């Protein structure tokens, strides 16, 4: 399925956005997030951005105080996922202007819509920033 989940977590380990592409119940989500956050946040800048966890590969990247963590299955190309994370951040940057944790907190819905434009069913469906943002901009205009 390619991407299995996308998480955004702050330095304290609090989840700021969680999008799963396969159904997990609340309890499973909480444990999974806890385990992954504990594993990834303990790592330093000099270490690589890939962590194997259960049957996932977790590709993560830190931007300021936010960690972006993407869980993928074993077939996925790690470097491409890193690029995807970067694209996601750039897209958010373009929309919010220097995106920060608070932007995502207060516009969680929008963050979800952006992800929705980029990823469907675990597959990356759009990689152009303007294409990703155009429906959201339309929506903003309408409201």
């Amino acid at each position, binding site marked *: *399925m*390619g991407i299995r989940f996308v998480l955004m977590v702050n330095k304290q380990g*609090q*989840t*700021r*956005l*969680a*999008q799963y*592409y396969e*159904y997990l*119940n*609340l309890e499973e*989500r*909480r444990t999974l997030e806890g385990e992954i956050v504990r594993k990834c946040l303990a*790592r*330093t800048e*000099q*270490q*690589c*951005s*890939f*962590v*194997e966890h259960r049957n996932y590969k977790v590709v993560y990247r830190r931007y300021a105080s936010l960690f972006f963590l993407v869980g993928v299955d074993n*077939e996925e*190309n*790690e*470097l*491409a996922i*890193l*690029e995807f994370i970067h694209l996601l951040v750039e897209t958010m940057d373009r929309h919010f202007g220097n995106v920060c944790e608070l932007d995502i*907190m*207060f516009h*969680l*819905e929008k963050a*979800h*819509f952006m992800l*929705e434009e980029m990823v*469907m*069913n*675990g*597959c*990356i*469906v*759009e*990689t*152009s920033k303007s*294409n990703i943002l155009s*429906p959201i901009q*339309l*929506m903003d205009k*309408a*409201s």
Partner: protein
Amino acid sequence: MAGPSLMDSLFQRSLDDIIKGVRLCPPGTEPTFIAKSLDEIRREVKSTDRQTKAIALQKLTYLHCLHGVDMSWAAFHCVELSSSSAHSHKRIAYLAASLSFNPSTTDVILLLTHQLRKDLSSSSVHDVSLALSTLSSICNPDLSRDLTPELFTLLSSGKPFVRKKAIAAILRVFEQYPDAVRVCFKRVVENLESTDVGILSVVVGLFCELAVKEPRSYLPLAPEFYKILVDCRNNWILIKVLKIFAKLAPLEPRLGKRVVEPICEHMGRTGAKSLAFECMMTIVSSLSEYESAVKLAVGKVREFLLDDDPNLKYLGLQALTIVAQKHMWAVLENKELVVKALSDVDVNIKLEALRLVMSMVSEDNVMEICRILISHAQKSDPEFCNEILGYILFTCSRNFYEVICDFDWYVAFLGEVARIPHCQKGKEIETQLIDIGMRVKDARLELVDVARSLVIDPALLGNAFVHGVLAAAAWISGEYVALSRNPFELMEALLQPRTGLLTPSVRSVYIQSAFKVLIFCIWSYGKLNGDDASEPSALTESVSKCDLEGTSETVVCESLSDTEVDNENMIIAGGQTSSASSRKYRLTKESIMGLVNLVEANLGPLAGSDEVEIQERVSNVLGFIELMKPKLHGPLGDGEGDEMKGKLEASEMVKLMFDVFSEELGPVSLSAQEKVPLPDGLVLKENLSDLEAICGDVKFPSSTSFSLIQPRILEKDTSSFPECNEESGPSTESTSLLAEHRKRHGLYYLPSENKGTTFNDFPPAHEPQDKTIDEAEDLVKLTEESLTSKKKQNHIKPRPVVVKLDDGEGLNMAVEKSKVKTDLISGAVREVLLGNEPMTSSSRSKSSNKSSKRREVDRIPESGNDIVNTAISEGSIAGSGRRKHQTHSKERKHLSSGKEKEQHDHNDKQKRDSRHHKHKSRQRAEGGINVPVQSPVIPDFLL
């Protein structure tokens, strides 16, 4: 509960209020705040005002996402709100649904079907896109079935924005409802020729997902993928196409030949590391037989390894691990980089390097690698140290110690590993020590030595991690005490005061081992004094096992050392092992008495232990000593009257105990029972209910008292039956019935072998076991044979026999997992792509291979200036292309839309131009034949 009021709507808190509220919460009060907000939401969500409802749902979704609040109760409200005409409300509702619905349990999903259908056919692309996203996350089989027609329409939508999402959503629908493949697959395939990057990206992604599960079905599409591979310049798409070829190439060798060149080109040209990495991985995993390509790829791997970026280093090591399976030279070339990576700052990189090093292990280098790794482990942090140890232990023990030739070395190595300060692998070492003891007879001597040094070291007792190892060592010392250099010393070690630090379970092993050692000593002593002269055969056999060569010198402990030396008395028969000359200790009456006293003194206090295991075993030992003591005290030298008798009794008792312990318990395979052959004519699976009807209340003899008493009565009453004394039953009547029944249905019964002596019909219980042992011995011989034939010349020592029970042991029984749904998808795909023939894909592709080969032969003389090479490779592509082509020609008959028809004609024309006329006519003919067969599958709305 009060109904929602106007007040609620007017003074409803917004999502922002909630977020701020949560943030302002003093520590600890957050749950209260959330609970309070939830109460509000529960009220608000029932409001008839859509706006109020929407905001309530929005807040709930937020709390659900970030604070783990359950919102399954609000499922129906999501459905309600989704029918709102306002796009923003719809968005909130669908987002809530896709984030919280469980596709398999949320039952209101079905209520959403209608709304989804409406939105999928909406004129607003945003509504459609919203519905598609939602569908892809909450899809279940019912929803898939009901919405397939709408999706089918969207798959050829003129708006790329919608079309690409429909393609992404269809994957989930295929998984849930494989019949949708028959309807939609062709339209999906058409999109492979799309010029829109977005659409192409999605459709390639879709095929990538499908091909991972069952690649063979997608071979016919290879020409389309090839075109994308060559023409496309988008890295995202190329990565996915490469993944597809990685799956397809191993299935069709000519395909590999064709794609290897463009892949190498991409790898050389691209500046994107992700694409280069993908090319590299494709080559090393699927095109490893193309030497030059692998060389290029390994060069790239080296670049990655040399890079400062830890990510590239990590991935480089991973790629190298894959190369290593077929091209060990690649690892050797980069050996120093790999070893360097073992001391990287990143534990993940270290682990990869470790895995890679372990993959290099063979029987020739295992000792060297282990030595290097151990020295590395001692320098590393405890965590990684244990990783290394775990890997070493795993690799060495793999497949019954496959890589180990020198077990003496390995056993000593295990002892060494156990002493490494951070070692937490005690459990594993314990298992392996005992396992080797049982399996490898030749290693026992060394094993006993290692065990001795472990048991004797008082420092180890304080380390809880090695307690398991100590238990194994103690067990080995006791079990193979006959091989021990000095049982007295062993006994002292087993009873040393620091054993109090052991856990009760380990301690009881110690006590039991001490018991074994004690008995062995007393027995040897008795033997030495010629007590057993009267006892012939049984002992001499067991003596041959022990290679004790008692002479003089080296006395155990001070308490025993002041005895006189009597050389003659010390010689024990046997002593065949030449190396045992160093095994010397004294066996005199005093030394034995000293030993007994030592045991008594040390174990006595434990007789009152709270731990049952300890208490029980100590009681055993003490009880035995109690029995033996008076008899040992007597002057053993002069044999007179009663004393002589007592001694004899004692020696018999010792012998009995010795026999108990010296009998080796062979391992029994888990599947031993299965190996007992079924007697001829025995039908086990037949229904025996008729038997029950005949002797409903018969109880088969279970207690011996029955069978002892009954036969006499039987003889009197039912003398007419000659076999009656073979059988025993509780009542004469039923017995006779049973006997009669036996006569009639002889084949239901097990044959009784020795008539007249057995009272019941069941075969003796020990029989199958005997057979197993025989079989185990046969296997030993077999493995021996196979090993000798395999043995390499350069080994100085022959590899000792490792007892394996059977093939089933140790191997995990691979249970075939039924992938019904995948099979359904690929089955349907094959049907669509290859035509509706009841042929399996393999046979089909074979036949097409043949035909394409035939074509090659035809072609070469036709077009003389064609290079043979291209003819062959094109042949492969064309061969699979033909099959794809069929679908097109079929489609043409079915599709009514003129526009599409035109498009297809155009496509066909393009293709035809590049091919030969002969080929074309063939495909036409075949397409024509296939149409009638295919047509019933196509549902009505296709026409």
